[in-house]
């Protein structure tokens, strides 16, 4: 994996394709277990297909937003990216279920949105106070 990554970052297109297909294989079980961890999704959607869909979408997004040649590319960032895509998928699915009248999905949806908003507000406040102390 490491040597593939090195070659891909050096511009080898074949190595890049192979690296991403290995990444797919590595990410898929992670996604499956995350989706299975959500009781509402487990009974409402086909987890296997859902996981494949999320994995493919996430890798496509990753290639587009954070190209492997970019200086910012790292496995850590790729994993963060993947987790955000999983959350997006779960939230989107829960939104559809909640809109259709599933109250358990609605509760779960708002708990997730709350968690996401808390993460964002903490980050924003931290950035703001850093900005303030720089100005001082």
């Amino acid at each position, binding site marked *: 994996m490491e040597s593939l990554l090195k070659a891909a970052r050096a511009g080898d297109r074949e190595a890049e394709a192979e690296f991403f297909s290995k990444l797919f294989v590595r990410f898929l079980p992670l996604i499956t277990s995350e989706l299975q961890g959500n009781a509402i999704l487990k009974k409402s959607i086909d987890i296997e297909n859902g996981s494949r869909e999320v994995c493919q979408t996430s890798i496509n997004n990753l290639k587009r937003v954070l190209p492997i040649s970019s200086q910012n590319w790292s496995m850590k960032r790729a994993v963060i990216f993947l987790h955000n895509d999983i959350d997006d998928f779960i939230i989107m699915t829960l939104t559809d279920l909640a809109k259709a009248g599933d109250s358990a999905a609605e509760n779960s949806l*708002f708990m997730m949105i709350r968690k996401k908003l808390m993460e964002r507000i903490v980050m924003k406040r931290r950035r703001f106070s850093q900005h303030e102390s720089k100005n001082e």
Partner: protein
Amino acid sequence: MSPKTNEDIVQEALVVIYDKYKHTEFENGILPYAYGVMDNLLRNDYKTETRRNNILSDQITRLLEIYGNHHSIEDMINYQELVDEIWEALTKLSNKEKAVFKLWLEGIPILEIQKRLDLRRNTVAVRLFRAIKKLKHILKRRGFL
């Protein structure tokens, strides 16, 4: 009067999102919409907080000018406890005192306040004196005067 906590802002955002989500088609999903709602609330909170601090700075500046104290506003703003006490004292002013004090803080001369509130000059002066005395008392107690 204290600034909103993260919990408060997130809760307000959730209320807005809950009201809307069933009847809205979110082009990019509900999450970017939720972030937008919360960012707006956060921006408004900063504005309110800045406005509040500016008003307070002006008030303290005016009081210090009157009583000839030379502490810097920055030093005083750091004393959140003092700030809270001053705000509390302002809420304790009677409505009559508040009406006069508010105009005076805006820099309106006593003669003009007298006309606007249809009061005698002495009445304006007495109400203003009492309001300032209360605030002065707090500053003194905290060792700033």
